[in-house]
């Protein structure tokens, strides 16, 4: 998961990845990855929310609107939610949100969901590495860039 080799493979394109994570599991998981010095690509920007329950689909849309090539949404495993049920509510909304994205033709390979606990620093590092690698393969999200930049004629 060393960056240089990966990016070389995709002639230098470095994806922009925005991650919405919950404060109690995935954020701490990412902290643990740091404490254990687990290296992963620097493409991800983490936005901390209290709970996956707080992560509104509009935020995902906004992330695409600011030019994200991929979006990560991650929180506590079922049963682990600091707020007991936030992640269950989130999971439901994600299921439905994916449906409308599918019809709209938003590439679901660019929107990633994960349960990553405070103990899973390794999983976080690996997950970010995988998402980054996959997005490098996919290349820049030009379809959405077109939407952002389209002029009204």
């Amino acid at each position, binding site marked *: 998961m060393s960056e240089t080799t990966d990016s070389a493979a995709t002639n230098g394109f470095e994806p*922009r990845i925005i991650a919405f994570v919950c404060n109690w599991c995935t954020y701490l998981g990412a*902290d643990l990855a*740091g404490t254990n010095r687990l290296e992963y690509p*620097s493409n991800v920007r983490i936005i901390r929310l209290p709970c996956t329950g707080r*992560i509104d689909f509009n935020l995902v849309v906004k992330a695409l609107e600011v030019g994200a090539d991929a979006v990560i949404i991650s929180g506590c495993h079922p049963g682990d939610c600091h707020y*007991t049920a936030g992640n269950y509510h989130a999971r439901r909304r994600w299921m439905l949100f994916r449906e409308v994205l599918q019809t709209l033709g938003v590439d679901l390979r660019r929107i990633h969901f994960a349960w990553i606990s405070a103990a899973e620093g390794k999983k976080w590092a690996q997950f970010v590495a995988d998402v980054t690698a996959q997005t490098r393969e996919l290349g820049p999200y030009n379809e959405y860039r077109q939407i952002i930049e389209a002029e009204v004629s």
Partner: protein
Amino acid sequence: MSRIGVFTCWCGENIARMVDVQRVTETIAQVPGVRVAVNYKYMCSDPGQASIRDKIVEEKLDGLVVAACSPHMHLKTFRRAAAAAGLNPYLVEMANIREHCSWVHKDKELATAKAIEIIRMAVEKVRRNHALQPIRVPMTKRALVVGGGVAGIQAALDIADAGYEVVLVERDPSIGGKMAGLSETFPTLDCSQCILTPRMVEVGQHPRIKLHTYSEVEGVEGFVGNFKVQIRKKARYVDMIKCTGCGDCWAVCPSKKNLSEFDQGMGYRKAIYIPFPQAVPARPVIDKEACLYLKNGKCGVCAKKCVPQAINFSDQDEVITEEVGAVIVATGYRLYNITKDQDNSKLTGYGEYGYGLYKDVIDGLQFERLASASGPTGGAIKRPSDGAEPKKIVFISCVGSRDEQHGMTYCSKICCMYVAKHAMLYKHKVHDGEAHIFYMDIRAGGKNYEEFVRRAIEQDGAVYHRGRVSKITQENGKLVVRGADTLLGQPVTIEADMVVLASAMRPSEGATRLAQMLNVGVDEFGFLSESHPKLRPVETNAAGVFICGACHAPKDIPEAVAQASAAAGKVAIMFANEELTRDPEVASVNELTCAACFTCVRACPYTAIEKAMVLDGRGNFIKNTARVNPGLCMGCGTCVAVCPSKSVDLEGFSEEQIYSQVESLAL
């Protein structure tokens, strides 16, 4: 224009090695709204914090970003520093450029670029933070303790001794719980009742403890500091005030053959009875299933015999309401009853042990009664079937515990110890008897525990077989126990007179229902969930509700007592304040734009949102609205995400804050 200060920490080499803090500082200094940007070797150090405090004053800062480690590490630290300099602590944000940046990247260029963006996000966020004041909620300084076992007793006494009123609710006619029924306790072998009953009496006589025995919690309303609890006081048919506990009634009661719950069904009691001599309160109850008068109107000799005329056959259940500010759940455990407890699909095993089929196969608590001086046999070890003294007893541990296939995955923790104790007690009473123990591992962690087990083996000659028992059959008056000794690597067959199963500990009946009433989570086995396994072991996610004892997980007496005192301490700390102060980073509703679809009400994990009405000055109805109870809201923000019009927002993670963070990442 805001006046934000950005303080970038080197964390010695931890950050500075991988992030060019100088470049970061210079770049951030150029961000609109940033008044000062500095960097320092150790921001969390005293000089570091001092420099922050000075800058806040000098530059009249109205927002603070500390770019350093994880907020989970130091946000509180820097909020305190800000407060000390007169800046509202909620105007402080941290940018995590250590755990999330310098520690996980190897390319200094990329890491520096990322650090700048992380800080940029924090700047955009803090610009939209609000100065917040802690939320104050008035509270009833009165605690409810559910469960009158040793944990509940300890918790109740500690809180009462701290000077606060306690309402103690016990389902059985007497407090005392499981411990009151134990013979002797490991590792000291001191008599269980001798140490417990004085505490029970203390509870009974304590001026600040209100005791409701033979009662159950039926409903809970309200929230932390302000609970209203409905308690069902089951009909006792005995007037608690008139009754003197003289015992004339049960002496004459003709209904004799009723299995004694206290004796674990090993002995009998009357229809009107006290569970055991030292019961608190020492007042009898009438078992309406057994009472001849209540069943078919004949008899009533107890009433005739009762001088103070305390018998009241027309007694009814009564539901009372108690107002309390905090609740401690201490509902304890029950043993895995192989014949009855095949409730969840996983519990399917151990029929082969013949429990409930062979009279002389009993469980640990039943053996306690056999061994107890106050027990049905007066402490003499006699087997249930014929009262003969068993010459060979097989003790089996891990019955239903540590068993993925047929039982519970967890370890019931106390069995290893009490099995050793049982062997000892048996050998002390039946010197020529043989005590065989089948075990998986001996888990004797605890003060003097290992020594205790060694004693059982070395001094009292308990025979340990490492292995599981596959089957127990009854052949010509003997219980043939077939197992394996994995150490010897050969099958073992023992013809025993009695078998004692160390059955798994499970949460007591109704624990889950109570948990639901209190909005406390339960795990897959029905044990109540603590708020944090390490740091908040007696708190729950329901504010003002605490847990102790075996309702949380299998525990032995010292642990249960320690945890009970811990929970009591938490309550005392809460009550020590004039009013409740809660984190102000909670949700609130814009009542004018709320469409009152109440999706948030359905979604809130804490039932912290209520259906309310907007009224005009004269109290006329204007519209419906959702309303957040700040005393209950824990700030998860689930309501914000489900609100279609975004009429509800969450302080600290407001829509404006999050969107501005995302937008700061625009290419």
